[in-house]
Protein backbone atom coordinates (compact mmCIF):
# COMPACT_ATOMS: atom_id res chain seq x y z
CA UNK A 1 0.00 0.00 0.00
CA UNK A 2 1.53 3.36 -0.97
CA UNK A 3 2.36 5.53 2.00
CA UNK A 4 1.38 9.20 2.12
CA UNK A 5 2.96 10.78 5.20
CA UNK A 6 2.94 14.19 3.46
CA UNK A 7 -0.86 14.20 3.05
CA UNK A 8 -2.26 17.72 3.59
CA UNK A 9 1.05 18.74 5.18
CA UNK A 10 2.17 21.25 2.53
CA UNK A 11 0.17 24.17 1.12
CA UNK A 12 0.36 26.43 -1.90
CA UNK A 13 0.13 29.90 -0.38
CA UNK A 14 1.22 32.22 -3.18
CA UNK A 15 0.66 32.42 -6.94
CA UNK A 16 1.89 34.95 -9.47
CA UNK A 17 1.60 35.11 -13.25
CA UNK A 18 2.61 37.48 -16.01
CA UNK A 19 -0.20 36.31 -18.24
CA UNK A 20 0.73 34.96 -21.65
CA UNK A 21 1.36 36.40 -25.08
CA UNK A 22 2.95 35.72 -28.44
CA UNK A 23 4.46 39.18 -28.80
CA UNK A 24 6.55 39.66 -25.67
CA UNK A 25 10.17 40.74 -26.04
CA UNK A 26 11.16 40.42 -22.38
CA UNK A 27 13.70 37.82 -21.30
CA UNK A 28 12.92 34.67 -19.35
CA UNK A 29 14.69 36.27 -16.40
CA UNK A 30 12.44 39.33 -16.58
CA UNK A 31 9.28 37.25 -16.93
CA UNK A 32 10.33 34.92 -14.12
CA UNK A 33 11.09 37.83 -11.79
CA UNK A 34 7.70 39.42 -12.48
CA UNK A 35 5.88 36.19 -11.61
CA UNK A 36 8.12 35.45 -8.62
CA UNK A 37 7.73 38.84 -6.96
CA UNK A 38 3.96 38.68 -7.57
CA UNK A 39 3.75 35.23 -5.96
CA UNK A 40 5.83 36.25 -2.92
CA UNK A 41 3.70 39.38 -2.38
CA UNK A 42 0.54 37.31 -2.90
CA UNK A 43 1.67 35.14 0.01
CA UNK A 44 2.20 38.25 2.16
CA UNK A 45 5.95 37.58 2.27
CA UNK A 46 9.16 39.24 1.13
CA UNK A 47 12.59 38.09 -0.06
CA UNK A 48 13.80 37.39 3.46
CA UNK A 49 11.17 34.68 3.92
CA UNK A 50 12.25 32.58 0.92
CA UNK A 51 14.79 29.88 1.78
CA UNK A 52 14.02 27.39 -0.99
CA UNK A 53 14.13 27.94 -4.74
CA UNK A 54 13.03 25.52 -7.44
CA UNK A 55 13.43 26.74 -11.02
CA UNK A 56 11.76 24.74 -13.77
CA UNK A 57 14.33 23.79 -16.42
CA UNK A 58 12.51 25.25 -19.41
CA UNK A 59 14.83 25.50 -22.42
CA UNK A 60 16.89 28.68 -22.06
CA UNK A 61 15.58 29.42 -18.55
CA UNK A 62 17.94 30.99 -15.98
CA UNK A 63 19.30 28.83 -13.17
CA UNK A 64 18.09 28.92 -9.58
CA UNK A 65 21.39 30.61 -8.76
CA UNK A 66 20.59 33.45 -11.18
CA UNK A 67 17.09 33.85 -9.75
CA UNK A 68 18.41 33.82 -6.17
CA UNK A 69 20.87 36.60 -6.89
CA UNK A 70 18.38 38.56 -9.01
CA UNK A 71 15.72 38.40 -6.29
CA UNK A 72 18.22 39.43 -3.62
CA UNK A 73 17.58 36.35 -1.51
CA UNK A 74 19.67 36.12 1.64
CA UNK A 75 20.14 32.44 2.48
CA UNK A 76 18.89 29.51 0.38
CA UNK A 77 18.91 26.08 2.04
CA UNK A 78 17.35 24.10 -0.84
CA UNK A 79 17.56 24.70 -4.58
CA UNK A 80 17.13 22.65 -7.75
CA UNK A 81 16.26 22.84 -11.44
CA UNK A 82 13.91 19.96 -12.36
CA UNK A 83 12.84 19.13 -15.93
CA UNK A 84 9.81 20.94 -17.35
CA UNK A 85 6.25 19.84 -16.59
CA UNK A 86 5.22 21.35 -13.34
CA UNK A 87 4.88 18.48 -10.88
CA UNK A 88 8.57 17.57 -10.85
CA UNK A 89 9.09 20.97 -9.23
CA UNK A 90 6.01 20.99 -7.00
CA UNK A 91 6.93 17.59 -5.57
CA UNK A 92 10.54 18.67 -5.04
CA UNK A 93 9.31 21.74 -3.15
CA UNK A 94 6.86 19.66 -1.08
CA UNK A 95 9.49 17.14 -0.13
CA UNK A 96 12.01 19.85 0.76
CA UNK A 97 9.51 21.48 3.11
CA UNK A 98 8.33 18.24 4.68
CA UNK A 99 11.90 17.01 5.19
CA UNK A 100 13.00 20.28 6.73
CA UNK A 101 15.37 21.31 3.94
CA UNK A 102 13.57 24.64 3.60
CA UNK A 103 10.55 26.37 5.14
CA UNK A 104 9.23 28.51 2.29
CA UNK A 105 9.93 27.40 -1.29
CA UNK A 106 9.51 29.53 -4.39
CA UNK A 107 8.84 27.67 -7.66
CA UNK A 108 9.47 29.63 -10.86
CA UNK A 109 8.50 28.64 -14.42
CA UNK A 110 9.50 31.04 -17.20
CA UNK A 111 8.35 30.07 -20.69
CA UNK A 112 9.57 31.47 -23.96
CA UNK A 113 8.38 30.84 -27.52
CA UNK A 114 11.26 28.89 -28.99
CA UNK A 115 12.61 29.13 -32.52
CA UNK A 116 11.70 25.54 -33.42
CA UNK A 117 8.11 25.91 -32.22
CA UNK A 118 7.21 29.38 -33.46
CA UNK A 119 7.97 31.12 -36.74
CA UNK A 120 8.00 34.57 -35.16
CA UNK A 121 10.39 33.32 -32.47
CA UNK A 122 12.74 32.05 -35.17
CA UNK A 123 13.13 35.64 -36.34
CA UNK A 124 14.42 36.74 -32.92
CA UNK A 125 18.23 36.59 -32.84
CA UNK A 126 18.29 36.09 -29.06
CA UNK A 127 15.92 33.13 -29.17
CA UNK A 128 17.88 31.49 -31.99
CA UNK A 129 20.71 31.02 -29.50
CA UNK A 130 18.67 28.50 -27.45
CA UNK A 131 19.90 24.98 -28.40
CA UNK A 132 17.27 22.89 -30.21
CA UNK A 133 15.75 19.86 -28.52
CA UNK A 134 13.74 18.55 -31.47
CA UNK A 135 14.68 15.40 -33.42
CA UNK A 136 17.07 15.89 -36.32
CA UNK A 137 15.11 13.86 -38.88
CA UNK A 138 11.44 13.56 -39.89
CA UNK A 139 11.41 9.77 -39.31
CA UNK A 140 11.28 9.99 -35.53
CA UNK A 141 8.39 10.00 -33.13
CA UNK A 142 10.46 11.30 -30.23
CA UNK A 143 9.14 14.32 -28.34
CA UNK A 144 5.93 15.99 -29.56
CA UNK A 145 5.43 13.70 -32.56
CA UNK A 146 4.98 10.73 -30.23
CA UNK A 147 1.55 12.00 -29.21
CA UNK A 148 0.42 12.21 -32.83
CA UNK A 149 1.68 8.69 -33.46
CA UNK A 150 -0.26 7.24 -30.54
CA UNK A 151 -3.27 9.34 -31.54
CA UNK A 152 -3.25 7.32 -34.77
CA UNK A 153 -3.27 4.15 -32.68
CA UNK A 154 -6.15 5.44 -30.51
CA UNK A 155 -8.34 6.03 -33.56
CA UNK A 156 -7.41 2.59 -34.90
CA UNK A 157 -7.94 0.58 -31.72
CA UNK A 158 -11.21 2.16 -30.66
CA UNK A 159 -12.67 2.79 -34.12
CA UNK A 160 -13.61 6.35 -33.16
CA UNK A 161 -13.33 9.72 -34.88
CA UNK A 162 -11.73 12.94 -33.61
CA UNK A 163 -14.78 14.18 -31.68
CA UNK A 164 -13.13 13.97 -28.25
CA UNK A 165 -10.25 16.14 -29.37
CA UNK A 166 -12.59 18.65 -31.02
CA UNK A 167 -14.54 19.04 -27.78
CA UNK A 168 -11.36 19.33 -25.70
CA UNK A 169 -10.23 22.17 -27.98
CA UNK A 170 -13.58 23.97 -27.90
CA UNK A 171 -13.93 23.53 -24.12
CA UNK A 172 -10.56 25.17 -23.57
CA UNK A 173 -11.27 28.12 -25.82
CA UNK A 174 -14.70 28.74 -24.29
CA UNK A 175 -13.13 28.95 -20.83
CA UNK A 176 -10.20 31.08 -22.03
CA UNK A 177 -12.69 33.70 -23.18
CA UNK A 178 -13.13 34.69 -19.53
CA UNK A 179 -9.47 34.35 -18.51
CA UNK A 180 -7.58 37.64 -18.85
CA UNK A 181 -4.23 35.79 -18.63
CA UNK A 182 -5.02 33.68 -21.71
CA UNK A 183 -3.44 34.28 -25.10
CA UNK A 184 -6.25 32.86 -27.28
CA UNK A 185 -9.66 34.20 -26.22
CA UNK A 186 -11.74 34.13 -29.43
CA UNK A 187 -14.33 31.39 -29.26
CA UNK A 188 -14.17 28.49 -31.72
CA UNK A 189 -16.73 25.91 -32.84
CA UNK A 190 -16.55 22.20 -33.53
CA UNK A 191 -16.66 23.09 -37.24
CA UNK A 192 -13.64 25.36 -36.78
CA UNK A 193 -11.80 22.40 -35.30
CA UNK A 194 -12.66 20.08 -38.15
CA UNK A 195 -11.58 22.61 -40.76
CA UNK A 196 -8.32 23.56 -39.01
CA UNK A 197 -5.05 22.96 -40.84
CA UNK A 198 -3.46 19.54 -40.37
CA UNK A 199 0.04 19.69 -38.90
CA UNK A 200 0.79 16.05 -38.22
CA UNK A 201 -2.16 13.97 -39.39
CA UNK A 202 -4.29 12.95 -37.41
CA UNK A 203 -3.64 16.06 -35.27
CA UNK A 204 -4.31 19.58 -36.49
CA UNK A 205 -3.40 23.11 -35.44
CA UNK A 206 -6.11 23.11 -32.72
CA UNK A 207 -4.87 19.85 -31.17
CA UNK A 208 -1.56 21.41 -30.10
CA UNK A 209 -0.90 23.83 -27.26
CA UNK A 210 0.22 27.30 -28.16
CA UNK A 211 3.81 28.44 -27.58
CA UNK A 212 3.84 31.57 -25.41
CA UNK A 213 6.01 34.00 -23.53
CA UNK A 214 5.20 34.31 -19.86
CA UNK A 215 5.83 33.00 -16.39
CA UNK A 216 4.08 31.48 -13.40
CA UNK A 217 5.40 31.25 -9.87
CA UNK A 218 4.21 29.54 -6.71
CA UNK A 219 5.07 29.81 -3.03
CA UNK A 220 4.74 26.67 -0.89
CA UNK A 221 5.11 26.19 2.84
CA UNK A 222 3.93 23.92 5.62
CA UNK A 223 0.20 23.72 6.31
CA UNK A 224 0.98 24.86 9.82
CA UNK A 225 2.65 28.08 8.69
CA UNK A 226 0.06 28.55 5.93
CA UNK A 227 -2.68 28.94 8.52
CA UNK A 228 -1.46 32.45 9.37
CA UNK A 229 -1.10 33.65 5.78
CA UNK A 230 -3.41 36.04 3.90
CA UNK A 231 -5.16 33.56 1.58
CA UNK A 232 -6.99 30.41 2.57
CA UNK A 233 -4.35 27.70 2.11
CA UNK A 234 -4.70 25.15 -0.67
CA UNK A 235 -3.46 21.83 0.66
CA UNK A 236 -1.67 19.19 -1.41
CA UNK A 237 -3.53 16.03 -0.49
CA UNK A 238 -1.52 13.67 -2.70
CA UNK A 239 0.93 13.95 -5.56
CA UNK A 240 2.72 11.62 -7.94
CA UNK A 241 5.01 11.54 -10.95
CA UNK A 242 5.25 8.18 -12.68
CA UNK A 243 6.36 6.15 -15.66
CA UNK A 244 6.82 2.56 -16.74
CA UNK A 245 10.16 1.10 -17.80
CA UNK A 246 9.65 0.79 -21.56
CA UNK A 247 8.70 4.47 -21.96
CA UNK A 248 10.45 5.39 -25.23
CA UNK A 249 7.83 6.87 -27.55
CA UNK A 250 8.00 4.18 -30.24
CA UNK A 251 8.62 1.25 -27.84
CA UNK A 252 5.73 1.93 -25.42
CA UNK A 253 4.09 -1.52 -25.26
CA UNK A 254 0.45 -0.43 -25.26
CA UNK A 255 -1.87 2.51 -24.89
CA UNK A 256 -3.54 0.69 -21.98
CA UNK A 257 -0.65 0.90 -19.51
CA UNK A 258 1.72 3.87 -19.34
CA UNK A 259 2.76 6.66 -16.98
CA UNK A 260 -0.78 7.97 -16.54
CA UNK A 261 -1.91 4.63 -15.12
CA UNK A 262 0.97 4.61 -12.64
CA UNK A 263 0.13 8.13 -11.45
CA UNK A 264 -3.58 7.43 -11.16
CA UNK A 265 -3.02 4.24 -9.17
CA UNK A 266 -0.78 6.20 -6.80
CA UNK A 267 -3.21 9.10 -6.36
CA UNK A 268 -6.15 6.79 -5.73
CA UNK A 269 -4.22 4.83 -3.11
CA UNK A 270 -2.83 7.93 -1.38
CA UNK A 271 -6.05 9.97 -1.27
CA UNK A 272 -9.19 10.03 0.86
CA UNK A 273 -11.32 10.97 -2.15
CA UNK A 274 -11.44 10.39 -5.91
CA UNK A 275 -13.34 11.76 -8.89
CA UNK A 276 -16.82 11.26 -7.39
CA UNK A 277 -15.87 13.94 -4.86
CA UNK A 278 -13.84 16.19 -7.15
CA UNK A 279 -15.25 19.65 -7.93
CA UNK A 280 -12.68 20.63 -10.56
CA UNK A 281 -10.60 18.66 -13.08
CA UNK A 282 -7.46 19.95 -14.80
CA UNK A 283 -6.28 17.37 -17.35
CA UNK A 284 -3.17 18.34 -19.29
CA UNK A 285 -3.74 19.40 -22.88
CA UNK A 286 -0.36 19.90 -24.47
CA UNK A 287 -2.00 17.71 -27.11
CA UNK A 288 -5.71 16.86 -27.10
CA UNK A 289 -4.93 13.12 -27.21
CA UNK A 290 -3.29 13.53 -23.79
CA UNK A 291 -6.51 15.05 -22.42
CA UNK A 292 -8.78 12.34 -23.77
CA UNK A 293 -6.39 9.76 -22.27
CA UNK A 294 -6.46 11.45 -18.83
CA UNK A 295 -10.26 11.63 -18.96
CA UNK A 296 -10.52 7.92 -19.74
CA UNK A 297 -7.73 6.71 -17.47
CA UNK A 298 -9.00 8.68 -14.45
CA UNK A 299 -12.25 6.80 -14.88
CA UNK A 300 -14.61 9.54 -16.00
CA UNK A 301 -15.54 7.15 -18.83
CA UNK A 302 -14.30 3.83 -20.26
CA UNK A 303 -11.29 3.72 -22.64
CA UNK A 304 -12.11 4.92 -26.14
CA UNK A 305 -15.28 6.73 -25.07
CA UNK A 306 -14.05 10.25 -24.29
CA UNK A 307 -15.80 11.64 -27.37
CA UNK A 308 -19.19 10.23 -26.41
CA UNK A 309 -18.63 11.22 -22.77
CA UNK A 310 -17.84 14.84 -23.59
CA UNK A 311 -20.86 15.02 -25.91
CA UNK A 312 -23.14 13.56 -23.22
CA UNK A 313 -21.91 16.05 -20.60
CA UNK A 314 -21.71 19.04 -22.94
CA UNK A 315 -23.32 22.32 -21.92
CA UNK A 316 -24.53 23.96 -25.12
CA UNK A 317 -25.04 27.34 -23.45
CA UNK A 318 -21.42 27.68 -22.38
CA UNK A 319 -19.90 25.38 -25.04
CA UNK A 320 -17.97 23.58 -22.31
CA UNK A 321 -18.05 20.20 -20.65
CA UNK A 322 -19.81 20.13 -17.29
CA UNK A 323 -19.90 16.62 -15.85
CA UNK A 324 -23.33 15.86 -14.42
CA UNK A 325 -24.01 19.59 -14.78
CA UNK A 326 -21.42 20.21 -12.06
CA UNK A 327 -17.72 19.51 -12.71
CA UNK A 328 -15.90 21.68 -15.30
CA UNK A 329 -12.58 20.80 -16.97
CA UNK A 330 -9.71 23.28 -17.45
CA UNK A 331 -11.56 26.44 -16.38
CA UNK A 332 -8.61 28.63 -17.42
CA UNK A 333 -8.59 27.39 -21.02
CA UNK A 334 -5.75 24.91 -20.65
CA UNK A 335 -2.45 24.95 -22.49
CA UNK A 336 -4.38 24.92 -25.76
CA UNK A 337 -5.84 28.38 -25.18
CA UNK A 338 -4.31 30.01 -22.11
CA UNK A 339 -0.82 29.11 -23.33
CA UNK A 340 1.63 26.23 -23.27
CA UNK A 341 2.98 26.30 -19.72
CA UNK A 342 3.73 22.60 -19.17
CA UNK A 343 1.01 22.54 -16.51
CA UNK A 344 1.73 25.62 -14.42
CA UNK A 345 -1.48 27.20 -15.68
CA UNK A 346 -3.48 24.16 -14.59
CA UNK A 347 -2.02 24.35 -11.07
CA UNK A 348 -2.44 28.13 -10.74
CA UNK A 349 -6.07 28.00 -11.84
CA UNK A 350 -6.86 25.16 -9.44
CA UNK A 351 -5.37 27.19 -6.57
CA UNK A 352 -7.27 30.35 -7.47
CA UNK A 353 -10.54 28.41 -7.78
CA UNK A 354 -10.04 26.65 -4.44
CA UNK A 355 -9.37 30.02 -2.80
CA UNK A 356 -12.65 31.25 -4.25
CA UNK A 357 -11.03 34.21 -6.00
CA UNK A 358 -11.47 33.24 -9.67
CA UNK A 359 -13.86 36.11 -10.37
CA UNK A 360 -16.06 35.56 -13.43
CA UNK A 361 -14.74 32.04 -13.73
CA UNK A 362 -15.37 31.04 -10.11
CA UNK A 363 -16.98 27.63 -9.71
CA UNK A 364 -19.31 28.09 -6.72
CA UNK A 365 -18.33 26.13 -3.65
CA UNK A 366 -15.31 24.40 -5.23
CA UNK A 367 -13.38 22.57 -2.47
CA UNK A 368 -11.42 19.82 -4.26
CA UNK A 369 -9.45 19.55 -7.50
CA UNK A 370 -7.66 16.85 -9.47
CA UNK A 371 -4.78 18.20 -11.56
CA UNK A 372 -3.07 15.84 -14.03
CA UNK A 373 -0.17 17.48 -15.89
CA UNK A 374 2.02 15.74 -18.45
CA UNK A 375 1.69 13.12 -21.15
CA UNK A 376 2.16 9.33 -21.45
CA UNK A 377 5.83 8.56 -21.70
CA UNK A 378 8.06 10.05 -19.02
CA UNK A 379 6.23 13.04 -17.56
CA UNK A 380 2.84 11.76 -16.41
CA UNK A 381 1.97 13.55 -13.18
CA UNK A 382 -0.90 14.29 -10.87
CA UNK A 383 -2.00 16.04 -7.72
CA UNK A 384 -5.12 16.12 -5.57
CA UNK A 385 -5.77 19.52 -3.99
CA UNK A 386 -8.24 20.60 -1.38
CA UNK A 387 -9.21 23.88 0.21
CA UNK A 388 -7.77 24.09 3.73
Amino acid at each position, binding site marked *: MPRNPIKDAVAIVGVGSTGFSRTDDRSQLALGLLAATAAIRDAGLDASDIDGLVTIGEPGAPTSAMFASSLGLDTVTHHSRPSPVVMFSIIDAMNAIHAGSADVVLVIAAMLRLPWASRSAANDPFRRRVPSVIP*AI*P*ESIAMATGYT*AWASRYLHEYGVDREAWARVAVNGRSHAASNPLAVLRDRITLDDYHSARMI*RDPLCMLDMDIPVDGADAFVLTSAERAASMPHPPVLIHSASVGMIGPNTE*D*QLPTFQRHGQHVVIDQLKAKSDFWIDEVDLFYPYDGFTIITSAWIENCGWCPPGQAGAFLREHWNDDTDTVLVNGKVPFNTHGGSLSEGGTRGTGHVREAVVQLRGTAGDRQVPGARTALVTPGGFFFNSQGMMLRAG
Partner: protein
Amino acid sequence: MSAPTDAELIEVLAHLPVERDTAEHYRGYLRRELVFNRCGACGRYDAPMRPMCPSCWSWDMVPTPVSGRGILHLAIALHQGPPADGVDYAAGPHPVVTVDLAEQEGLRFTSTVVDCALADVRIGLPVELTWIERSGAPFPAFRPTTIGEA
Protein backbone atom coordinates in the same frame (compact mmCIF):
# COMPACT_ATOMS: atom_id res chain seq x y z
CA MET B 1 35.09 -2.29 -48.32
CA SER B 2 36.50 -2.18 -44.82
CA ALA B 3 34.19 -1.02 -42.05
CA PRO B 4 34.24 2.75 -41.65
CA THR B 5 35.89 4.17 -38.57
CA ASP B 6 33.75 6.03 -36.05
CA ALA B 7 35.01 9.34 -37.42
CA GLU B 8 34.15 8.31 -41.00
CA LEU B 9 30.73 7.06 -39.92
CA ILE B 10 29.87 10.34 -38.22
CA GLU B 11 31.06 12.26 -41.27
CA VAL B 12 29.17 10.15 -43.83
CA LEU B 13 25.99 10.15 -41.68
CA ALA B 14 26.26 13.74 -40.46
CA HIS B 15 22.48 14.09 -41.01
CA LEU B 16 21.74 11.36 -38.44
CA PRO B 17 22.10 11.31 -34.62
CA VAL B 18 24.97 8.79 -34.46
CA GLU B 19 26.15 8.29 -30.87
CA ARG B 20 28.57 5.86 -29.22
CA ASP B 21 25.84 3.46 -28.08
CA THR B 22 24.00 3.54 -31.43
CA ALA B 23 26.97 3.55 -33.82
CA GLU B 24 26.56 -0.11 -34.89
CA HIS B 25 22.92 0.54 -35.84
CA TYR B 26 24.03 3.33 -38.17
CA ARG B 27 27.12 1.48 -39.43
CA GLY B 28 24.63 -1.15 -40.65
CA TYR B 29 23.03 1.47 -42.94
CA LEU B 30 26.22 1.55 -45.02
CA ARG B 31 25.86 -2.24 -45.60
CA ARG B 32 22.10 -1.83 -46.13
CA GLU B 33 21.38 -3.86 -42.99
CA LEU B 34 18.93 -2.89 -40.25
CA VAL B 35 20.81 -3.75 -37.07
CA PHE B 36 19.68 -3.88 -33.44
CA ASN B 37 21.31 -5.24 -30.34
CA ARG B 38 20.38 -8.80 -29.43
CA CYS B 39 21.22 -10.14 -26.00
CA GLY B 40 23.68 -13.03 -26.11
CA ALA B 41 22.34 -14.31 -22.80
CA CYS B 42 18.54 -14.19 -23.10
CA GLY B 43 18.15 -13.75 -26.84
CA ARG B 44 15.93 -10.65 -26.68
CA TYR B 45 16.36 -7.82 -29.14
CA ASP B 46 16.47 -4.26 -27.78
CA ALA B 47 15.69 -0.93 -29.42
CA PRO B 48 17.10 1.63 -29.36
CA MET B 49 20.63 0.25 -29.02
CA ARG B 50 21.82 0.27 -25.42
CA PRO B 51 24.88 -1.27 -23.77
CA MET B 52 23.03 -3.53 -21.30
CA CYS B 53 20.05 -5.83 -21.74
CA PRO B 54 17.09 -4.34 -19.83
CA SER B 55 15.55 -7.81 -19.49
CA CYS B 56 18.44 -9.74 -17.89
CA TRP B 57 21.20 -7.14 -17.32
CA SER B 58 23.66 -9.02 -19.49
CA TRP B 59 26.29 -6.83 -21.16
CA ASP B 60 26.70 -9.33 -23.99
CA MET B 61 24.78 -7.25 -26.52
CA VAL B 62 25.44 -8.40 -30.08
CA PRO B 63 24.65 -6.15 -33.06
CA THR B 64 22.33 -8.34 -35.16
CA PRO B 65 20.56 -7.65 -38.47
CA VAL B 66 16.78 -8.08 -38.57
CA SER B 67 14.64 -8.99 -41.58
CA GLY B 68 12.84 -5.64 -41.64
CA ARG B 69 9.50 -7.36 -42.16
CA GLY B 70 6.67 -6.18 -39.96
CA ILE B 71 3.29 -4.54 -39.49
CA LEU B 72 2.53 -0.82 -39.21
CA HIS B 73 1.76 -0.12 -35.54
CA LEU B 74 1.61 3.70 -35.65
CA ALA B 75 1.11 5.79 -38.79
CA ILE B 76 1.04 9.55 -39.23
CA ALA B 77 1.59 12.06 -42.01
CA LEU B 78 3.72 15.15 -41.42
CA HIS B 79 2.36 18.22 -43.18
CA GLN B 80 5.40 20.06 -41.86
CA GLY B 81 8.47 18.94 -39.96
CA PRO B 82 12.25 18.83 -39.81
CA PRO B 83 13.99 19.34 -43.17
CA ALA B 84 15.67 16.35 -44.79
CA ASP B 85 17.17 15.50 -48.16
CA GLY B 86 14.42 14.16 -50.42
CA VAL B 87 11.56 15.25 -48.16
CA ASP B 88 9.37 17.96 -49.71
CA TYR B 89 6.42 18.83 -47.50
CA ALA B 90 5.11 21.21 -50.17
CA ALA B 91 4.69 18.24 -52.52
CA GLY B 92 2.50 16.40 -50.02
CA PRO B 93 2.43 15.05 -46.47
CA HIS B 94 5.39 12.86 -45.51
CA PRO B 95 4.37 9.53 -43.96
CA VAL B 96 6.12 8.48 -40.74
CA VAL B 97 5.44 5.00 -39.41
CA THR B 98 6.45 2.85 -36.49
CA VAL B 99 6.70 -0.80 -37.47
CA ASP B 100 6.29 -3.82 -35.20
CA LEU B 101 9.14 -5.99 -36.47
CA ALA B 102 8.62 -9.70 -37.11
CA GLU B 103 11.54 -10.80 -34.93
CA GLN B 104 9.93 -9.96 -31.59
CA GLU B 105 6.59 -8.58 -30.43
CA GLY B 106 6.95 -4.91 -29.49
CA LEU B 107 10.37 -4.50 -31.17
CA ARG B 108 9.73 -1.42 -33.24
CA PHE B 109 11.49 0.85 -35.70
CA THR B 110 10.34 4.19 -37.03
CA SER B 111 10.89 5.37 -40.61
CA THR B 112 8.90 6.33 -43.69
CA VAL B 113 6.97 4.32 -46.31
CA VAL B 114 7.71 4.44 -50.02
CA ASP B 115 6.01 2.91 -53.08
CA CYS B 116 2.61 3.34 -51.42
CA ALA B 117 -0.25 5.83 -51.79
CA LEU B 118 -0.62 7.93 -48.64
CA ALA B 119 -4.20 6.72 -48.20
CA ASP B 120 -2.89 3.16 -47.96
CA VAL B 121 -0.37 3.96 -45.22
CA ARG B 122 -2.54 2.59 -42.42
CA ILE B 123 -2.03 0.75 -39.17
CA GLY B 124 -2.04 -2.99 -39.85
CA LEU B 125 -0.34 -2.78 -43.27
CA PRO B 126 2.32 -5.52 -43.73
CA VAL B 127 5.61 -4.00 -44.85
CA GLU B 128 9.17 -4.96 -45.69
CA LEU B 129 12.47 -3.16 -45.57
CA THR B 130 13.81 -1.21 -48.50
CA TRP B 131 16.65 1.28 -48.84
CA ILE B 132 16.46 4.82 -50.14
CA GLU B 133 19.21 7.40 -50.60
CA ARG B 134 19.46 10.35 -48.24
CA SER B 135 22.27 12.88 -48.24
CA GLY B 136 24.39 10.49 -50.30
CA ALA B 137 24.04 7.51 -47.96
CA PRO B 138 21.62 4.58 -47.65
CA PHE B 139 18.60 5.16 -45.38
CA PRO B 140 16.19 2.41 -44.27
CA ALA B 141 12.54 2.74 -45.24
CA PHE B 142 9.55 0.45 -45.60
CA ARG B 143 7.34 -0.51 -48.53
CA PRO B 144 4.20 -2.65 -48.67
CA THR B 145 5.06 -6.35 -48.62
CA THR B 146 5.61 -7.38 -52.23
CA ILE B 147 3.48 -10.09 -53.85
CA GLY B 148 5.03 -13.51 -53.61
CA GLU B 149 6.65 -12.89 -50.26
CA ALA B 150 3.39 -12.17 -48.48
